[in-house]
């Protein structure tokens, strides 16, 4: 398999458990280069755990998560230089401003695009000199997104990136930003509860239910197969999962 054909992100038999509670079991999934993959599921389904496993921030109980064909847990440091990440909870050193955080990250990434970082902050009216902990929830999310995008990553991982964002910002994230990245060939792996936004941009989706990947595939293909919208499909899978 050539590098271009190789999945950017793969889960191979990944199991994640907290004590006796299993949130994902034997999960297999590939995210191909240039695709926009949305992992959907109810609250507590294990989406964030899988994101952490994908980034090497958490070690799976069983199986492996691979980034660019390499084990993400073992090679986290070198692999994450090629990845942009927006966590579910925007966490950054609280006493630092967005500009100071950018200054810190610039040293770590040779392809840092400072202009685009500043432009995105300006676009959403995020004060660059204000301490991070004094920003609103949505502003923090924008800062994290801008930090993730500035290094021009090969893979962008978004863990529910629109949580707390206003309608304008949500639209930006889904319709313009991710669309633009997809056009450039950047692979995007995201989790979200904003199904309308996902439907607008994702080309592939996966549904996590009862610790398993209930179904995964091309969004258009799934919609045609089930003859329903993404939201209806999501509700149906959730109900089936609960019944099981």
């Amino acid at each position, binding site marked *: 398999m050539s590098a271009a054909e190789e999945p950017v992100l793969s889960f191979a038999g990944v199991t994640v*458990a*907290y*004590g006796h509670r299993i949130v994902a079991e034997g999960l297999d999934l590939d995210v191909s280069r240039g695709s926009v993959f949305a992992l959907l599921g109810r609250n507590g389904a294990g989406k964030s755990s899988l994101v*952490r496993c994908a*980034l*090497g*921030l*958490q*070690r799976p*109980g069983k199986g492996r998560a691979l980034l660019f064909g390499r084990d993400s847990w073992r090679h*986290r*440091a*070198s*692999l*994450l*230089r*090629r*990845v942009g*990440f927006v*966590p579910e*909870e925007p*966490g*950054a*050193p*609280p*006493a*630092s401003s967005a500009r*100071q955080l950018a200054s*810190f*990250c610039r*040293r*770590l*990434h040779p392809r840092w695009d400072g202009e685009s970082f500043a432009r995105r902050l300006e676009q959403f009216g995020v004060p660059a000199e204000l301490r991070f902990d004094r920003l609103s929830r949505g502003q923090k999310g924008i800062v994290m997104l801008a930090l993730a995008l500035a290094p021009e990553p090969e893979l962008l991982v978004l863990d529910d990136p629109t949580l707390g964002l206003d309608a304008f910002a949500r639209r930006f994230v889904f319709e313009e930003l991710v669309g633009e990245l997809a056009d450039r060939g950047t692979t995007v792996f995201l989790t979200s509860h904003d199904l309308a936004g996902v439907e607008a941009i994702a080309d592939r989706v996966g549904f996590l239910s009862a610790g398993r990947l209930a179904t995964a595939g091309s969004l258009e293909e799934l919609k045609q197969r089930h003859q329903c919208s993404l939201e209806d499909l999501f509700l149906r899978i959730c109900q089936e999962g609960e019944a099981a």
Partner: protein
Amino acid sequence: MRDALAVARLELREWRALPALALGAGTLTAIVTRMDAPADLKNLAGLILSVCWPVAALVAGAGVFTRDLREGRAAFLCARGLPMRWVWAGKLLAALVLAATAWTLLSAPVWLVMPLPRLSVPVRVDVERVAVLTVLLIGLGHWIALASAARGRRLLADVVLSVLLLSTVTVLTMWLWFAGALPWSTETTVLACCALLTVAGAAAVIRGRGGRSASYAAFTTAHWVGLAALAAVEALNLHVIRSVGPDDLERPLLQVVSPGGEWVSLVGKVAGPPRKSMPTLLVSVTGPDVINTGRASFWEGVGGDLVFSQDGRWCAWPVLEWIAGLGSQPVVRLVELKPGTPLRSRRTPLDDPPDADAMPGIGLSPSGRGMLLVHPRGRIEALAGEDLRTLWKHDGGDAAGFLDDDNVFILRRGSGGRELVTLGLMAGDERRKVTLGGDGISRLVLAPTGSTALALTGRKGGPWLVERCDLARGECRPLWEGLDEAKGSEGDWGDAAEGAFLSDGGVVIVGRPQGTVGWEVRAFEPDDRVRWTLPLPAHRLAPLLIGEPRPGTLIIQAALPAPEAEQIGWPHPVYVVGAADGKVRRTETAFLPPRMTRRWHCPFRWGRAATYFAGDDGAVWRLDPETGSRDRVPLG
């Protein structure tokens, strides 16, 4: 490395408020110590200051902990692709810089205003309790935070591992301390813990098994908090050192004056709530200003007597030290009484654990370079240097030993009776041997030249005598015979006699002749002829307190009969005696404290121009040996 520096810069920016707080606390400390406020208010302020720093350390440590755990594994830093070792190193580097900066800023205001005499006003803090409280809080917070973060079995295993590591490190540190590999101090222990935790934490992080997040956060926090605690202990020590003055001594016990009379050291218990094994404060003062104060672990009632070097610079004592859960350890402590520097005692554990009631006797050479330990069972041990390394041990000795800077003099049973043997201090080689007339020995006084000694010896069932021993020739001849065994009226006045060499080669001896009431002072010429005799009608006398503060003048402390003593109210006048003619003059105004016993007054010394002594009220008095006039030394 660049990554580590970037992380360190980031962390320093995050915690920039801490140095500012330290500066504020230091300024407040300086202000409070200068206030003319009631003592209770100052004590309260001192207590608040003592607590606020450890609490700040706890909050800072918990802050780092919480934030790092929130996203699983310091998500912000790790998600940027930073290698774990550089994240960890950067945080440690930042912690070091931060702790050092905070300590400096906390201490600086106190140091800056210290020269002002008013700063001797006390603001007391209980360093030990605050330190213990800090460690307990840190340990508790640490464990709770880890336990709450342990969501899986692997994380829980790491929690257990970290607790085990912490316990091991603590026990190991204590063991090293017991073995004498670590000089004891709170700071040293905290520092050692931090160093060992650094190694253990690095191993845990690099090991990289599941649950790395908890290990990482645990050890990072331990470093932060440990280093902050170190800074706190140092700051509090400084605070105590700078704020406790001689007036705080509840009961001054001992004092020593430097040969030049420039400074005085007091040893006493700090006023405060009674505690078992309360360490005694050792305070050095001079003239109107406090030059330094410090604590030394002198456990009253358990330790042996303190001894001072002739130049007054070194002080040593044996002590049975006790640590909770680990039993007791007999040690010898040595402290340098150096003006202007904090007092820090060095310790060396004893190989032959004595009973608590029979600690070894100690002798210090005149310059303090050598130390002699005379164990109750007869073993004699010579130590040297500031690190108290053992030079040699001698098992054939008797329970007596003395030393100068080059030689050690021990008494042993020889073929012709008791022998006074001279050994080299450094090598323990036998140099000379003198056979004594008596069976035992009570005191040995060496002439300044070291070639002659006065030996007070006893005979079984018979009178005691003072012999003059020529160490070079190996001869001893009786100087004064027929002395009472000298059990004073209170039973603890000790020796039968005390002697001193005069500047002209003569000898003066205070003794208690058999069959007489009271004491007698005799001066002898260099050729042993009696120069003069002075009977003292005192029923008690402190024979140690004789000497020649300047050529031709003796000072003798004597006690008057009870009725006269009651009239005066101070029953211990000081006599000045002419060394040449024996003419005596009782000083009109000079006195010594009435409740002095032999055990506690022995370090009374004199300078060239004046004599100092402490009263029961803690005051230090300066006595002019010629006129007998006295004046109180202002102590801040």
